[in-house]
């Protein structure tokens, strides 16, 4: 079994006065695809942001490849080889599509080439010179994902990557994630669309009220359907 690439324990996080995470524990091993499931407001996004170091303040332990990153500023965390794709996409209006795509600096060898990214998302190639935020919602989502694939970061944090995408594209993203996994990337995924999550993930963590409350292996999903429905209120 591969060692834990990302190991989070006792993670607490705050936005200003409000205490959001109350001791989150989970691990992601190298080469795995792991999802965080949970209702709205359970703290999934906050967990990702805390790993990246872009919440108000945080405490606890976040180890990446054995290095403690809890006291590092977020740019230093990123340079260790972690990349984050936010749920609100974060496309820059003052940059055109090309500049948006090329913005994140490479942090390691082995990122995808621009050509490969265009293959994945042909929409982008057509609209290369237009202003980033003039893209449609779904196109922006493609750009946001494509952008971090370039950097060579080996751990990808994808926050609801399928939100607002047409079903055809969702299927496309699914194929991409499986392919990245095969190429050795490690992926932490937040997904509402759990039918989709089931097609790509190895394991699932369930969050509630700022804590991880359960862990379910993907092959045990059927067996745990009952419980899961309760957690997610499907």
């Amino acid at each position: 079994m591969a060692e834990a690439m990302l190991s989070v324990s006792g993670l607490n996080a705050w936005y200003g006065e409000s205490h959001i995470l109350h001791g989150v524990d989970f691990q992601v091993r190298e080469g795995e695809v792991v999802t965080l499931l949970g209702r709205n407001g359970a703290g999934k996004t906050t967990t990702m942001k805390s790993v990246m170091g872009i919440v108000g303040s945080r405490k606890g332990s976040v180890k990446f490849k054995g290095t403690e990153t809890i006291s590092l500023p977020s740019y230093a965390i990123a340079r260790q080889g972690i990349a984050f794709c936010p749920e609100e996409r974060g496309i820059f209006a003052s940059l055109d599509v090309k500049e948006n795509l090329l913005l994140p600096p490479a942090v390691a060898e082995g990122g995808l080439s621009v050509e490969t990214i265009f293959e994945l998302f042909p929409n982008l190639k057509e609209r290369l010179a237009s202003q980033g935020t003039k893209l449609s919602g779904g196109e922006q989502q493609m750009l946001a994902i494509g952008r971090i694939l370039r950097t060579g970061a080996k751990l990808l944090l994808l926050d609801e990557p399928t939100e607002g995408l047409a079903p055809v594209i969702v299927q496309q993203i699914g194929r991409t994630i499986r392919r990245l996994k095969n190429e050795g990337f490690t992926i932490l995924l937040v997904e509402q669309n759990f039918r989709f999550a089931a097609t790509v993930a190895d394991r699932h963590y369930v969050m509630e009220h700022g804590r991880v409350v359960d862990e379910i292996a993907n092959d045990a999903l059927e067996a745990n359907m009952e419980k899961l429905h309760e957690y997610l209120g499907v």
Partner: protein
Amino acid sequence: MPDIFGIPPQALFGQLLLGLINGAFYALLSLGLAVIFGLLNIINFTHGAQYMMGAFVAWMLLNWLGVGYWWALLIVPVTVGLTGILIERTMLHRLYKLDHLYGLLLTFGIALIIQGVFRNQFGSSGLPYGIPAQLRGGTDLGFMFMPNYRGWVVVVSLVVCLATWFVIEKTKLGSYLRAATENPALVQSFGINVPRMITLTYGFGVGLAAFTGVLAAPIYQVSPLMGADLIIIVFAVVVIGGMGSIMGSILTGFGLGIIEGLTKVFYPEASSTVIFVIMVIVLLIKPAGLFGRAR
């Protein structure tokens, strides 16, 4: 040559050229404001005071240490820029999470302090600063006697403006800056040291103001009040141009300088208000400003 609107062409060209010189100052100052506003989202009310500090530090260098104009051009932006960095590190950076208006209020307060201290120290009657020897005298352009120093000011400010524009709009560093303007946390999560970038940008903007101050010192008196009223005019320039683009603030700066120059020919009484009148017209037609993006 026939008269144009009853003004001899010599005088008209002369005034246009003078307008261009004034415009150079507007452009440099509004450029500095735009750069700072871009990344910090703060209207730097201290800008006028920092421009004044630029002139004063040049004066002190000359009178206390015997360091001349050319070195001052280099040393002053750096030293005043460093004071800017200090302000950013100790005070401004605590306000980023709040409403931007607090930044305006803070820098307003700092401007009062700086101005007050300089007035206490130096009075406000103004101190002379000589034109550097190499640029004394002037050139007869036929239609006017052009002091060499003023020609130099136009050229150097154009160069600085265009260089700044190039860096921000056309380079990788510029794309980091523009992106960080919108979403600093995200840019930071890409592995870019945004806090340092913000600090340096503020330092750069302040340095630009100080640099403008050094340029101004030989033309105007070095006085604690030199920035206070100018900054309000520059604000109007900024509203007219809109904060949308760097080029916008450069073009607006020069353009308004020229318009102001022309007003001095045709209706001098209005020369102090013409920019504000233009601002009103622009607001009526294009509320976001000539180059601004609607927000």
